[in-house]
């Protein structure tokens, strides 16, 4: 793999995947994009399609039907990419832990770079998570280069 250009972490485009969340974290993601928090300062933009995305923001505990879709969206995202789990449900299963119709948490389905806990998490925490995802991408690259 080639070295990531320095611009990479200054231009992270995110795609929002809701895998059965209660909409709480999703509202916080939208809040992070409002003028008050202004995610575009860091070059973070919400895209409408996983093909344009660098970071997948996954909310929710991954319900049974969403498992396949999450894997598919992950595969549709061009490399290099990182997954940021937003909220307690996606991180651990949350209140849906061990539920009969949940196939999560997210890291049981796709590789996860950053966990942003909270129920729901603050917009600041989401922005911080996305920026940390860039660091994770760099680590990934370094380990692949040395290997």
């Amino acid at each position: 793999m080639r070295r990531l250009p320095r611009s990479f972490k200054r231009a992270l485009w995110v795609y929002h995947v809701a895998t059965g969340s209660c909409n709480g974290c999703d509202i916080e993601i939208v809040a992070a994009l409002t003028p008050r928090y202004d995610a575009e300062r860091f070059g973070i933009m919400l895209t409408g399609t996983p093909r344009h995305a660098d970071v997948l923001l996954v909310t929710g505990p991954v319900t049974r039907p969403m498992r396949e879709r999450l894997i598919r969206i992950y595969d549709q995202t061009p490399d290099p990419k990182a997954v940021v789990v937003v909220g307690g449900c996606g991180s651990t299963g949350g209140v849906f832990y061990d539920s009969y119709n949940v196939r999560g948490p997210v890291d049981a389905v796709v590789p996860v770079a950053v966990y942003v806990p909270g129920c729901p998490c603050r917009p600041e925490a989401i922005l911080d998570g996305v920026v940390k995802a860039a660091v994770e991408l760099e680590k990934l690259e370094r380990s692949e280069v040395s290997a």
Partner: protein
Amino acid sequence: MTGGIGAAIWQGATVLIGGALLGLVYKGIDRKLAARMQARIGPPLRQPFFDVVKLLAKENVVPDHAIAWLFNGAPVVSLAAVSSLLFYLPLGGFAPLLGGHGDLVLVIYLLAVPAIAMMVGGFAAASPYASVGAQREMVMLMSYEFPLVIALVSIAWRLSTILPEASVFSLSVLAANPLWDWVGPLGAVGLVLLALALLVVTPAELSKIPFDIPEAETEIAGGLLAEYSGRNLALFYLADAVKTVAMAALLVALFFPYGLADRLWLSGPLAGLVDVAFFLIKVLVVVFFSVIVVRVGFARLKIDQAARLFWIPVTGISLVGMVLLILDRVA
């Protein structure tokens, strides 16, 4: 063109690279100003450069069901068409590089090529979102081309009645003889109306809000561009940036071709520098009023609303402008 082939190649390369850089800078200014208008801090001016470099580092996905050669060809054709536009437009005090080989009619066609390339790419992507986007782009193209062509042809016709000997479709002739100097009050009102119509056509030509219907991120997931990623998306991104400059340069050449250097009694390299700087400011003013303010102030229209807007009010305005120019000739 002075000098040999070497000089021509140098000039061409300067225009191409300069055009791409300028386009990205204007995109950065656009995003910064839009952010300030929304009481945000906004991305740094260099953000579009970051975006392009990042996109070039990404994987270039071609969907399984896509027609690969069309899918990959469309972005290249799009960027090539908008870049060649720069050769036919007067930039600053300089005459167009290939001014002798193409005129206003060619510019109209070259402006339509990127839209058609995106349409072909959208259909070739074999994605429902991209297909919907391509159909919308087709409707948009049919809507805004009519007032655009009326405005451009009326101006050229009026000039032909004043300068029967000149080749009035040539952009260097149009830029050297601004109509404002010749027409009476009726014609001036007509020209203002035509400029207004073109200012409304500009955001549609560039697929900017409120006319970003073919790419509507929030409803059809990026539409035409839904399946594009990596290098192909970077090419479309660049084409969009360069097209903004080209469209603004066309409006400047038609309506505000005045230079500053003559008025300041300057000559030599300083005059060229002043004229280029003044040209860049004029382009920024056009981009500001027809793209940035409009995109912050309005929400996206529906495709039928956009089609109606262009077919009835905007075409009406440009037809009135044309009639006023004709009356000005008769009077």
